[in-house]
């Protein structure tokens, strides 16, 4: 256990020292400032929006959920950028740079090292995602007086999604060079997002084939399914036409993941971890 903590602390320290962390913090500050501006103007004008009489549409809830859904996407994106850059070179990259050899010959198992590096990355990314999630929620809540139906679960699912991406990036780092791995994981992330959008389009058009394909893709890449489920949790108790319209939008979350998804995400992490461990154990350094 002490080896895990030592390596995790090593990874954590490396993460905080790297320029990417400073860049992400800078991007985050810019993102939060722009998000506040967007909220400010949106809710300033909300009084001028009058839904058709009798439609039952809650304009404030619709606007709040949509813009906060957008913030969820931004948070996921920034968290994924951080997770990928912290893990993309853990095995092959660090071996090529000569950083891994002195560590790996110590009486620390390779599996322990991988797990500890993942833990170190998650220890940076999860609090970061949580902080940005809460920050954007406070901005929307305080500016527009709209709060999500569920506060904790969407944030946890977002952080879990980033942890899944970190695991995929670690798995890739066993086989690919840093650059190739970075490109591959970003492409996977993009594929997940496209699948989500295709699913939303399928939902809007009532195309079961599109919806099913998107659902399969989202579950193959559960960070996307977790993100979608988080979106759904934001407005899970919003009913009527408002809820229906939100479901149709890109930030509405038409999927229901629930407990099955969360269990699958844990199993997925274990499978990815096992593949990475097998690959790393068999690898000549």
């Amino acid at each position: 256990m002490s080896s895990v903590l030592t390596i995790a602390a090593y990874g954590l320290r490396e993460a905080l020292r790297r320029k990417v962390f400073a860049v992400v913090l800078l991007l985050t500050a810019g993102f939060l400032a722009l998000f506040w501006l967007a909220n400010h103007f949106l809710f300033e004008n909300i009084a001028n929006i009058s839904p058709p009489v009798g439609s039952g549409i809650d304009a404030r809830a619709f606007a709040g959920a949509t813009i906060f859904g957008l913030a969820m996407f931004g948070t996921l994106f920034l968290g994924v950028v951080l997770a990928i850059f912290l893990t993309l070179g853990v095995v092959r990259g660090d071996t090529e740079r000569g950083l891994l050899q002195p560590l790996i010959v110590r009486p620390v198992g390779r599996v322990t090292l991988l797990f500890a590096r993942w833990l170190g990355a998650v220890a940076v990314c999860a609090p970061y995602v949580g902080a940005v999630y809460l920050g954007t929620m406070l901005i929307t809540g305080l500016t527009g007086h709209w709060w999500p139906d569920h506060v904790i679960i969407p944030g946890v699912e977002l952080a879990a999604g980033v942890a899944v991406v970190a695991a995929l990036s670690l798995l890739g780092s066993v086989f690919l060079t840093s650059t190739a791995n970075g490109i591959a994981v970003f492409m996977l992330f993009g594929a997940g997002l496209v699948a989500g959008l295709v699913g939303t389009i399928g939902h809007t058009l009532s195309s079961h084939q599109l919806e099913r394909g998107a659902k399969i893709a989202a579950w193959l890449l559960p960070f996307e399914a977790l993100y979608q489920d988080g979106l759904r949790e934001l407005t899970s108790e919003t009913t009527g036409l408002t809820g229906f319209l939100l479901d149709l939008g890109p930030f509405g979350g038409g999927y229901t993941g629930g407990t099955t998804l969360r269990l699958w995400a844990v199993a997925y992490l274990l499978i990815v971890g096992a593949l990475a461990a097998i690959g790393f154990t068999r690898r000549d350094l």
Partner: protein
Amino acid sequence: MSALVVRGLAKRYGAVEALAGVDLEVRTGELVGLLGPNGAGKSTLVKIACGLVRASRGSAEICGHRAGSHEARRSMGYLAELFRFPGWYSADEVLGLHQKLTGSEGGERERHDLLELVGLADARTRRVEEMSKGMQQRLGVAQALVGSPPLLLLDEPTSALDPVGRRTVRVLLEELRGRGVSVLLNSHLLSEIELVCDRVAILLRGRLVAEGSPAELARSRGVEIETDDGTRLFEGASREDAPRLVAELVAAGRKVYGVRVLTSTLEETYLEAVGGETS
């Protein structure tokens, strides 16, 4: 018990045979030099011993434990040919990290002693990124010694060092031998190997082509005898022939002023063994 025992060790990288059945032993307290041209399999052998590379065939044991096992790793220190420490760590922190990973309880005392041993006592708080390459290499040697392992595997430990730094490492190796530490030294510097090693093993294309002490490997090149008639070279004669040759010369009425047994240097032995091959 031997510190390192390698039996029939073979390694294949696709079509390339890096090692083709090597037997080698490093006994307790022995300093063995590993020589060979680039691509001879020296680094592969060391990496298998450390558990960085898996052997295709054969076995390697460190202090009786299978190479790569937890116990074997506890019993060895390793300095890779290409290595780097995180630039933002100080020398003291690098050693502290490795103390934690090896489970060493030496604490500050051990770190201080090791840095002093490699001549870095004044650079304790200096960051790695502020160190010269030679200083980093000496820090690498100190790192390999964390936890006082009974076996050291050093892959080109002096490649980035200036003559003074090389001497520091040489003195250090002799001191370690005095303490009973076994060392497998992989180096291209023949003079260094000749100066410090008890035994030398020469690899060529994955095979052991020569092994023995520098004296055993040195081939006799004749006996040179200085007489009142001038200096005469008896080619092919060995040390054992010297008394007879002197007696014959004296019997012939010559005055003998000096006798020198000529042997080949390690460099000549090496070049003969590898046939001038470079990589």
